[in-house]
């Protein structure tokens, strides 16, 4: 392939794969709120990312990054920021709804877990958006 992957692209694909592998089951399979699961996922993503990024660094001879990489990185962070800011507005709106007009009664502990899950989900979505935006930017004209 004429445009085979650069070092930065490889690390981005590895990050995306690790995020989907670790976070996917929590949000789409278990559907349970749990502080322990969130803590476990954070540890799992750190370990998995360390292994994958180390492997890529060892297997890639040319690890140079340049101005285009930095521009694409900035675009990714902008997309991630816009995503998390938008989701925060939605999250705060939901919180206000629960506190004022919501009829769905929950115990205090459950409310805490519920919002832990919601805000953690926002972080995950924003991070995946950032990574995906960067990967798309590598394939499109800047």
């Amino acid at each position, binding site marked *: 392939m*004429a*445009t085979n*992957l*650069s*070092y930065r*692209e490889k690390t981005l694909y590895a990050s995306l794969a690790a995020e989907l592998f670790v976070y996917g089951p929590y949000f789409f399979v278990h559907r349970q709120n749990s502080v322990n699961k969130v803590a476990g996922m954070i540890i799992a993503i750190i370990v998995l990312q360390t292994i994958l990024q180390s492997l890529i660094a060892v297997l890639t001879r*040319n690890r*140079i*990054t*340049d*101005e*285009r*990489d930095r521009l694409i990185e900035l675009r990714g962070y902008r997309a991630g920021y816009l995503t998390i800011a938008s989701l925060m507005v939605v999250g705060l709106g939901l919180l206000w709804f629960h506190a004022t007009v919501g009829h769905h009664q929950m115990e205090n502990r459950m409310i805490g877990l519920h919002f832990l899950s919601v805000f953690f989900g926002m972080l995950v979505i924003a991070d995946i958006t950032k990574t995906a935006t960067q990967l798309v930017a*590598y394939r*499109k*004209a*800047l």
Partner: protein
Amino acid sequence: MPAIRNQIRELRALREMTQQELADRVGVTRQTVIAIEQDKYSPSLETAFKVAIVLGVPLEQCFQYDPRGKR
């Protein structure tokens, strides 16, 4: 038609220089050279000058600006 076009591919071919060699001498990745040659990325002024210097031609022989082109 892009606003900034270039003749890098042709100039490089004349010098029998590979994309990797040009990238190494300019200090960018091969993927960036590919993106520039395909008019998918307009480099910074500094990189544009470096490309022209490595290819041994004036900047305007390497890069051309078309005000009617789309950015």
